[in-house]
């Protein structure tokens, strides 16, 4: 057999192999209205989630993320796989919004809560009033404090003043990772 032809055939075999294996080995993020982050499962439909939250009388935590955000990966590893965080999150209805999504629902939430870089968490009442927000990355301890603050506020019926930008007045200091490459394509 002609060497170059043989190599070329091997090339296509490798190509198809890589393509097939990688496509099937990719971790499933979402399907059937859910997406997975770390060991937690988040709803993707906001309207459904609000119904759940209202029925259970619990606040909603909205997680804005993207596939390429390195701090989201940190959240997956440090927070959503941490038993303490997971049990705290059980008191919330969880909704994950992919910032790269063009779905109407996602765009509306982004605009409503003025979110333009990942990762961000906005904790709201079932009516959509902001309880607190966690811009960027917050270490596990701080993250828990934020959740507790939100829970307390929800119980006492108060909300953050307006919910425009970085409120979270009672929350501890976070270190927001400005991993905001969301707009790099602008310069591409």
């Amino acid at each position, binding site marked *: 057999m*002609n*060497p*170059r*032809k043989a*190599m*070329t055939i*091997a*090339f296509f075999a*490798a*190509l198809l192999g*890589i*393509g097939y*294996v*990688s*496509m*099937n*080995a*990719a*971790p*499933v*993020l*979402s*399907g059937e209205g859910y*997406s997975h982050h770390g060991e937690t499962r988040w709803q993707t439909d906001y309207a459904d989630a609000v119904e759940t939250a209202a029925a259970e009388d619990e606040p909603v935590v909205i997680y804005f993320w993207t*596939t*390429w955000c*390195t701090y989201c*990966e940190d959240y997956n590893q440090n927070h959503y796989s941490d038993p303490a965080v997971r049990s705290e999150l059980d008191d919330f209805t969880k909704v994950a919004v*992919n910032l*790269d*999504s*063009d*779905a109407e629902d996602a765009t509306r939430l982004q605009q409503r809560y*003025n*979110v*333009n*870089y990942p990762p961000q968490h906005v904790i709201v009442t079932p009516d959509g009033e902001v309880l607190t927000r966690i*811009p*960027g990355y917050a270490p596990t301890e701080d993250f828990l404090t934020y959740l507790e603050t939100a829970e307390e506020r929800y119980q006492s019926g108060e909300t953050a003043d307006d919910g425009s*930008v*970085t409120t979270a007045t009672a929350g501890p*200091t*976070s*270190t*927001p*990772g*400005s*991993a*905001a*490459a969301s*707009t*790099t*394509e*602008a*310069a*591409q």
Partner: protein
Amino acid sequence: MNPGTILLALAFLSGVVSTALLTRSYLVDDDRYLSYVPKLTAGTAVLLVAALAHLTYQFVSLDYSNAYVWENTAAYLSVLYRVTGVYAANEGSVLLWASIVAVVALIAGVTRGFPTRRGKLVHALTIGVVTYFSAMLLLQSPFASVRTAFPNAPPGFTPTSGQGLNPLLVDPYMAIHPPVMFVSYALLTMPFAIGAAHFIALFRGDDGLFSTWVGSVTRWLRLGWLFLTAAVALGGLWSYTVLGWGGIWAWDPVETAILIPWLFLTATLHAVTNYRPGGRYRILAPAMTASVFALAVYTTSVVRSGVFRSIHSFADGGIGASFLVLMGVTTVLGVVLPLAYWAMTEESGDDTSGTEGTDESRLARWVTRSNLLHLAVLLFGLLTFVSLWGLSFPVLRSAMTGLEVSVESHYYNLWSLPLVLALLLLLGFYMDYDREGLRRSLAGLAVFGLATLVGAAVAPSETWRLASARPGDALIYQVIGNASALSVLPPVAYAILGTVKRTGGRIAATGSRDAKLKETGITLIHVGAALLVLSLPFMYLFAGQASVMATGVAAGAVDTSQRDVGTSSYDIRVLGYERSEFPNDPEPGTYALTSSQVLTRGQSLNTSVQTVHGTVTAIREGPRATVVQLDDSQVWVGIAGNGTVGVETGQEIVARGQVMWEFVPTADAIVLAGPETVGPADDPPDAAVPTRVIATGVSVAVYDDNGLVVSGVAGQREYPEQGGLQVRDVLIDRGPLVDTYVIAGVSDGTASMSVKRVPFMTLMRLSIVSLLVGMVLVLLFDPRHGVRTNSIAGYGESASSSQSRPEGVTEVSD
């Protein structure tokens, strides 16, 4: 119609006419009317450049009547960042791209002319691309009136302040990265046109034009590679300083999108080297040449159109959809055409390796330089595929099954690494084989190949493993992820040794200065690539990070004692707190409306909160409020409170509040302000002046065991008017072995500081310089296809000589 749109329309017209004339003259082989073409080409280029200049002027002069300007700049930005606002979003960057392609087409046309029939086709294709871009710009114009954003505004309305430039782009790297990238994409248009014209000619029964144009193609490709490499590197360095990732690469879609053409271009350069007219690679080399540009357009479409994020929304329209059409056209010309030709022609592939290596054993028939080069092309092809597939398959899978899957850096890293190592081993072998003969070089390959496998198995500590295995991972990822980074060393050493030995020998053997310089360039490129591969995994695996918090950080005294930074060997000392806001005392006109502007906009302002400025012409004090007339007009400012406001007649004031239209019978508009929001224009109240940037930071000194490492300010800049987006101001000490990288988040009196150690950055920077310098040498001094060679020797291939000479390259005339 504004001047910008007129310029674009004229550019489009002259582009259409000149494409049509060239196509006609190619089809019927008749040179009538052809004399108009150079003028029209020049016209298109001049018009597009003029449109770009006009837009730049609008940016610098802050002409907010243009919606695009209004969206992407603001008065507080320096001139440099007003200029870079031009390519901060889609429309402007397409205009930049179009202008550069037009100039490249003009230079190509002027220097070479189009003496042959196929030359006309090549030119028709390049001008065709320019024309298409102009059409795109007309559909979604960077010159649209700001009234598209404010449909209800009265004629002549312009906003007082712009939205501002995306904070991430306020960076020197971003000033230079996009133009460099568009230059490279524009340069790739020429090889595309030549490759596509070649296949069109083949289909029309011609024998194609690639063999006569191969020198020119080589130069365009090399020049394109030079710029593309620089663009990728600049983009990586930007993300290093701006995004605070502590690394240069994160495989986000935009980064991957620019890497794909780079990988494929590298493959194409090797393929063109392997090309022999009428012999091997007579289809593959031109096909790859034609498809690089198609790939660049594809990846641009992926990141720009939005279509690939959700396959259903074609509604986006405008530039997104136009990119898709362009993608279709370039794919047909650059990929489908060559494939069709390949499928239609009889593949008489057996003669290919017949010219060399058939002598002794079967093995020798397999191991020939051209076969090895073929393998290199294939491996680069696979690398390209890995990145391309990572960008595409989530979309495919989600379209087919509705499941959203994630592509992590895992996927890219773990598939690419074995391929890259294989490429390096191949490089070492190729170089060694060329010098040492089959038997010895095979022994060398066996030794280094084995060393690679052993290296993969030996991990001195967990840190050396490529990826931390997670239980849910597929087997293949667990296997590769468990390999040790030690496996990188043997291939790198083999590649460098082989390259240096072979080129060293060649340099010694030749007497020609140009040949020596070219070989030096080849060495620099390949050694640079090997060092780059060395630096990347270690940069990530051996990066370290530790954090410390400091409280009581505020203006005034701070605790300046030295603190340990977590578990690291670093100490940090907080020296002070800094906070500043921009802009400082801007002109009232840049953020406040005049009374006449209020009256012009009239009813539309009713109940909105606005800032106004003007001269006080009358004051009336009432029991619960004071009202003040501005500029003797129908605009009054109402100030709640009883005579407590220190406003005098004749004074220039600024006030912010809700505008009530026809609220009281005596005035058209009244601005309901409070004592806090009214003040003299030369010392306006804080509440009335917009703060665009709040920079907070701590000045710190970082020490390690040997003393001071770096001192300076680290913190963040917040953009309250742009959704509160925050950008890091990092402090970086660029050391020879290790970069020290300080990130600080400062708020509410607390500074949380992280010190990162990023090793091998200097090696990476050096390897990039080596790649670039090497390519410059090869581009200029290659005895066969070099720019310099061609400009002094009247080379066989007629006019191809000087056409790819980049500006600024000094021609040696002797």
